């Protein structure tokens, strides 16, 4: 019987570049920026890293293929490097690779790096790409906002909610993240639109307006992981952060092809959450977790995810959102760093960026957005689109928690 990886791996260093339209930087600059912070934080020399995982999604539009861009950017000493890609869950996949390698005893110290240089395409939004040689013959030429906007139509229908009411709750989701990002100097978007601004923004893909969509950003984030024993030898004591759970639930095609899924939620997130809660020993997620970072690529996604994670009852996320449950001063702060919405969404880096925020918060290093003594946090990535996706969840906590 698998034991899981709870407390078997410690995070000893993390780094995150400033996110945004980094016109002056290529992917190699962003990786160096994140790695420099992480390696200093870990207090080790680069030569101590045994193996590395690179997560990048749109390789055609930025790094090119393979893990070599990481090896070359950091001039790693010919250690094993592996590239992983699993849509927007790519960053969490890089962390999973490094964490599993340490848990397996194959490495003492491993590096997980996520990077995305999106702003070299010459146009706004995510780059166009092929969906696959067969899929291109029958799937619509959809966009990310269009694929997620459909959640809203099905959600409103299922719960008998007026779209205007749903839009108001979605606006609160975005408003809250903008408010939070004011306190994050690394965030891409630090403006603070009003609820009215958000509601009146130009339509991108109905019912999603501009402010319902996250930033398309350049950035990199990384983690250095090792065993708790080595972490102790490097001086970590009460301030040791460990991985409590890392779980993945990818689609198998049911949402795309079977009528049992009604389109109003993500099928995979509850599956990943159940496994993660079990692995981490969480019984009541809303009570046990102190903060969460979820995949708020669009406002409706975050709202639906609150239910998919079991934090709000089905159909009740609107009420909880409008009641401020997930605001910075609420019962369970969500996206305290601004989230994908405002911190930004350099795809390959996003999963690691979420873990970075949990890490800072657990160590009391989150500056003016610091929460009061959090002990346990959760990150959630949703790679892909509602009809086919990868849900990736990590639970990160203080070693004793």
């Amino acid at each position, binding site marked *: 019987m698998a034991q899981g990886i709870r407390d078997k791996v410690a995070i000893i260093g993390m780094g995150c570049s400033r996110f945004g339209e980094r016109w002056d930087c290529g992917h190699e600059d962003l990786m160096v920026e994140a790695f420099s912070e992480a390696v200093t934080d870990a207090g080790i020399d680069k030569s101590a890293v045994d193996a590395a995982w690179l997560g990048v999604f749109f390789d055609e539009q930025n790094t090119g293929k393979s893990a070599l861009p990481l090896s070359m950017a950091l001039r790693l000493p010919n250690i094993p490097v592996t590239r992983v890609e699993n849509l927007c869950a790519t960053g969490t996949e890089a962390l999973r690779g490094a964490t599993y390698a340490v848990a397996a005893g194959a490495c003492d110290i491993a590096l997980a790096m996520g990077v995305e240089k999106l702003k070299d395409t010459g146009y706004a*939004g995510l780059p166009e790409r092929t969906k696959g040689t067969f899929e291109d*013959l*029958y799937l619509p030429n*959809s966009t990310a906002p*269009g694929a997620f906007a459909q959640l809203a*139509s099905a959600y409103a*229908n299922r719960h008998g909610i007026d779209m205007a009411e749903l839009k108001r709750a979605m606006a609160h989701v975005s408003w809250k993240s903008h408010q939070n990002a004011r306190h994050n100097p690394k965030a891409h978007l630090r403006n603070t639109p009003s609820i009215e601004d958000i509601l009146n923004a130009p339509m*991108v893909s109905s019912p999603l307006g501009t402010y319902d969509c996250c930033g398309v950003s350049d950035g990199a984030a990384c983690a250095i992981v090792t065993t708790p024993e080595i972490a102790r030898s490097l001086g970590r004591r009460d301030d040791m952060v460990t991985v409590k759970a890392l779980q993945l639930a990818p689609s198998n095609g049911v949402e795309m*092809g079977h009528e049992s899924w009604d*389109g109003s939620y993500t099928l995979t997130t509850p599956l990943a959450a159940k496994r993660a809660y079990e692995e981490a020993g969480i019984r009541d997620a809303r009570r046990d977790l102190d903060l969460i970072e979820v995949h708020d690529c669009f406002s409706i996604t975050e709202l639906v995810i609150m239910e998919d994670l079991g934090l709000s009852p089905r159909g009740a996320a609107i009420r909880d959102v409008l009641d401020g449950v997930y605001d910075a001063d609420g019962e369970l702060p969500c996206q305290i760093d601004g989230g994908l919405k405002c911190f930004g969404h350099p795809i390959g880096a996003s999963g690691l960026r979420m873990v970075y925020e949990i890490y800072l918060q657990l160590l009391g290093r989150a500056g003016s957005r610091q929460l009061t003594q959090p002990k346990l946090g959760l990150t959630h990535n949703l790679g892909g689109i509602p009809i086919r996706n990868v849900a990736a969840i990590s639970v990160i906590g203080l070693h004793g928690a």
Partner: protein
Amino acid sequence: MTPGILGWGAYVPLLRLPRARIVTQTAWLNPGFRQQAHGERAICNWDEDALTMAVEAGRDCLQGARPVLADLQLASTTLPFADRSNAGLVAAALDLEESVATRDTGGSLRCATSALLASLRGQTRAGLLIASEHRLARAGSAGELRFGDAAAALHLGYGEAVVAGFLGGASLARDLVDHYRASGERYDYPLEERWIRDEGYLKMVPEVCARAFSDAGLGADAVDTLIFPGPVRVGQAVCRRLGVDPSRLADDLAANCGHAGSAQPLLMLVHALEEASPGQVILVLGFGQGADALLFRVTDAITRAPRGLGVTGHLSLRREETEYLRYLSFTGQVEMEWGARAEHDKRTAQSVYYRKRRAITAFVGGRCTACGTAQFPRTRACVHCGAIDTQEEHRFADSRAQVKSYTEDWQAHSPSPPLMYGSVSFAEGGSLMMEFTDFATGELSVGTPLRMVFRIKDIDEKRGFTRYFWKPAPARSV
């Protein structure tokens, strides 16, 4: 046994462009157009062409049946491919047996009547003849006001089910260049109408009709309905020449469809058959560098003929196109700014398409014999029970469906923004994310009933290749 028509079908696109909207924009060029600013013409949506209209007319004719057909002929002067069987693609979309003999025929606006004559004289087994036309005319031309996009289909054969028996016919080939369009050109070169009337219609039609009457053993006085594909006034003059009462002229559909080119005689014939009663004699004329004449007698079987929407039904379903510029953009006559997303390469991996041609062209998915689940695409492992290699073919083209989720996407590239798409649930089970077509903004909601139509999926401008797939359109009652 007498050969003849077993059944009919038609297709007229949902979009109608009022001529007043054209004239408002073009009268500065020719104030005379103001006299023609009445009625409307049928126009293809951006994702329709002669081929997709042919498929719809064929479906309207067959009404879900899959009779064994010896041949499928596709008559048109505006088919999308000059060298790739258009008829073969239509046959595949109609899910006909591959033993069907397919033939594209064109070259003249007379091509459909000539094909009809040849079939009725030569065939021994059932076949399908579809005529479809999607003609372009320069902005500010008379043709722009006069043309209409449409298609008609005739199921031909022998036996007691014949609804209009072929009595006889004749053909005349004479190279009077009433208009022409050189290969590869987009537009017709028109000639003077008075000359065409005097030297063309008024001389050739009586000549060919005399032989047709002789062939059928009938006189002009027997004609109850005259299908004349030229201008009404010329038709009236032709009637006087022939000795046919001008009141016998069939509706030329100018008011609400426009002139459908090579499909016009068949479209008018289908329209006439919809109202025809047993015993009536119908004279069908084709004109273009010569003339064709065919005589039919309607039989008692017409009262039992399966009926689809036909011309009348399709004409009753309409959506007004309010933007003349959008129409010109659909036809590629003005170049709009589509942004960088339109640059995405639409290359088709032809070997993939070949492997998956049943899925893409015939919309055939699978049904699991272990658990009964219908699904698209058909895969090795069932989406529901996971059993391997248990799926038999299941065609979704005629399935009823409804909207599961939807969006109107202004970011995605579409020749007719916003791109509307969403998940669709089929009545027999199965779900698929698809691109909606023929919907206006604000029309979609969860549960909206849908029917499937064969449409252009993408146009690969770089390689000149058009690929097709099925799309959900508004359901309609027959």
